[in-house]
């Protein structure tokens, strides 16, 4: 493991060494480090820091601030970072509603934004921007994968998501690929903690499968309550409802759940085999999908800044767009709307040495883009 790590950092250093003349880069990292959503922000920060540490680059600096999951605060921080701290690239926002508030100001002031997670449909289509890159996915992708997967065994699905933009994107994405019958479609409140009323409807619906998109604490609450309800209908969902950050809190109730992800811990590629142990060694826990996305976002910025000056927006954008990185996801390249084209997998929650984690079941999409790229003309 050590040798492969060394090899990677050596390779990255070589990459940086050949452009000693490149401008130093200052990254503005805005993410959620307090409140209920802090787990996702901590993984985001740690993923970025690991990539920078491994690169050994001294010309890349990071300023980090906590957005407390509040859009108005995130906007203030972004303006402060751009105007008084002179950052070149911003990154790290977890939530779509925060990104929608921050992104217009960032690109209007001529700065780059590389998203580590949030990927609302509104920024992928007609309102795409040459300075806005998404290193994660487009919001619909993992739901589309589950829709495709549900075609293989479920005739009648009960589908459920929180009532906010990403929740509607989720069910839209699922239905875009699912060809069976939708028994019932339920929108829950954002931050809802009690799902008894919804579970009763699942029981009454006669569906043979349930698709849920409930990130963070919502998913934990739902899964624990579902396990107690005596309803046995199988659950499927997008990967972030069953990601490494929430699995320990759900417990054995999550065992056997099928989910989708563009990265899985056991993916068989050299970059992943170096990344997982390196992250575990550095932070003492397994990486989540958010950590991988952030790691790749940082890799993209590092790679671009070794090829072009960040002050030359056109050249830097082209260098980012080349996506010259070794992603733990395997195949990774940018679509015409600067969102990823990547493989998507179906995973299953299993227990390994007493720790709950995901394993790969099958590859459901190869080189999957998104439905909005065709509307992006910029």
């Amino acid at each position, binding site marked *: 493991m050590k040798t492969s790590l060394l090899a990677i950092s050596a390779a990255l250093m070589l990459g940086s060494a050949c452009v000693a003349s490149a401008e130093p880069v200052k990254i503005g990292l805005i993410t959620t480090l307090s409140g209920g959503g802090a787990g996702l922000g901590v993984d985001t920060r740690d993923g970025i820091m690991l990539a920078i540490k491994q690169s050994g680059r001294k010309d890349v600096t990071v300023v980090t601030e906590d957005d407390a999951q509040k859009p108005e605060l995130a906007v203030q921080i972004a303006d402060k970072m751009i105007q008084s701290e002179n950052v070149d690239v911003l990154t790290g926002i977890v939530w779509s509603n925060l990104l929608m508030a921050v992104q217009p100001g960032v690109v209007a002031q001529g700065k780059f934004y590389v998203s580590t997670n949030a990927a609302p449909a509104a920024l992928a289509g007609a309102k795409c921007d040459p300075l806005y890159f998404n290193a994660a996915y487009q919001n619909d992708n993992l739901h589309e994968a589950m829709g495709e997967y549900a075609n293989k065994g479920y005739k009648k699905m009960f589908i459920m998501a929180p009532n906010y933009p990403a929740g509607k994107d989720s069910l839209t994405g699922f239905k875009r690929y699912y060809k069976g019958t939708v028994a019932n479609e339920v*929108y829950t409140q954002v931050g809802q903690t009690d799902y008894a009323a919804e579970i009763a409807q699942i029981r009454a619906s006669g569906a043979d499968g349930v698709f849920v998109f409930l990130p963070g604490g919502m998913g934990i609450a739902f899964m624990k309550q579902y396990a107690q309800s005596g309803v046995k209908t199988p659950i499927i969902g997008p990967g972030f409802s069953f990601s490494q950050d929430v699995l320990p809190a759900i417990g054995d109730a999550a065992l056997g759940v099928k989910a989708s992800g563009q990265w899985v811990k056991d993916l068989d590629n050299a970059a992943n085999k170096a990344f997982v142990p390196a992250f575990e060694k550095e932070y003492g826990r397994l990486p989540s999908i958010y950590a991988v996305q952030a790691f790749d976002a940082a890799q993209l910025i590092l790679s671009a800044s070794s090829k072009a000056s960040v002050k030359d927006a056109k050249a830097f954008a082209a260098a980012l767009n080349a996506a010259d990185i070794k992603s733990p996801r395997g195949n990774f390249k940018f679509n015409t709307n600067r969102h990823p084209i990547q493989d998507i997998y179906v995973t299953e929650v299993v227990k390994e040495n007493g720790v709950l984690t995901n394993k790969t079941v099958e590859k459901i999409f190869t080189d999957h883009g998104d439905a909005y790229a065709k509307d992006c003309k910029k």
Partner: protein
Amino acid sequence: MTFALALEQLLNGVQLGFMLFLMAAGLTLVFGVMGLINLAHGSLYMVGAFACAAVAAATGSFWLGLAASLAFAAGAGALMEVTVIRRLYSRDHLEQVLATYALILIFSEGTRWLFGSFPLYLDIPPLLQGAVSLPGGAQYPLYRLAIIATGAAVAMGLYLLISRTRLGMRIRAGESDREMIAALGVDIRTLYTLVFALGAALAGLAGAMVGAIQSVQVGMGEPVLILAFVVIIIGGIGSIKGAFVGALTVGVVDTMGRFLLPQLLTFFVSPADAKPMGAAIASMLIYLVMAFILAVKPRGLFPAQA
């Protein structure tokens, strides 16, 4: 809609109501007796859940965790009263809100500092696992029935405490005339600390019980706190009976609204619009009910005498 589904949903509403009652009882007592708005009541709920999860993880026993949640929440409540709250009784409500809001931030970040940013694991005890059959054929989780039973027992206990014991008499007396009861030689400071710790223990109990079926994480108390405020405003501030009726009203209205409104709306608008619209109206429903009740009875259903 079958009878079984309707019965199950009604039980869900009642269960949510009893859980809210545990939160609202402490909040309304503190407001009624001491005239204090305590925003940090949700933090005590969180303290209970974290104490239960931590002790249950260390010892393997949910029941020890439950005992710990009562002890820790009551202890945290007493400490909060003696160090901060005591200085706020004579101040106006705005200063109380500011100070107790600061307590929320201190408790949240303190908890993160101790336990980290990731949610903790807390499972239901083996005794209460699984579901039981109801008349009509529906299955209902045993644990939720246990929450209903606990809530009912606490409601009964509080009623007896307030109406039949010397402590209850003093609480009622303190509510009506603070100076007079102090003049009669009752140690009002200790009484206030006791009442505050009692309210805190109930919040801690609610946090621990709910923690087993939800996510034990920083910030878990605030959404419940908002509902608890709705409950005591509907019920009439300071009234335990009001908190009880208010909690059950909010629980049943919220659950039934989430379940029935999206279906009802499909008669008026297209199904594609009805689902999100129904969900949006359902999330407003308890506030509409609150506004309606306040319009008819501005001091709530069972106002305590001022």
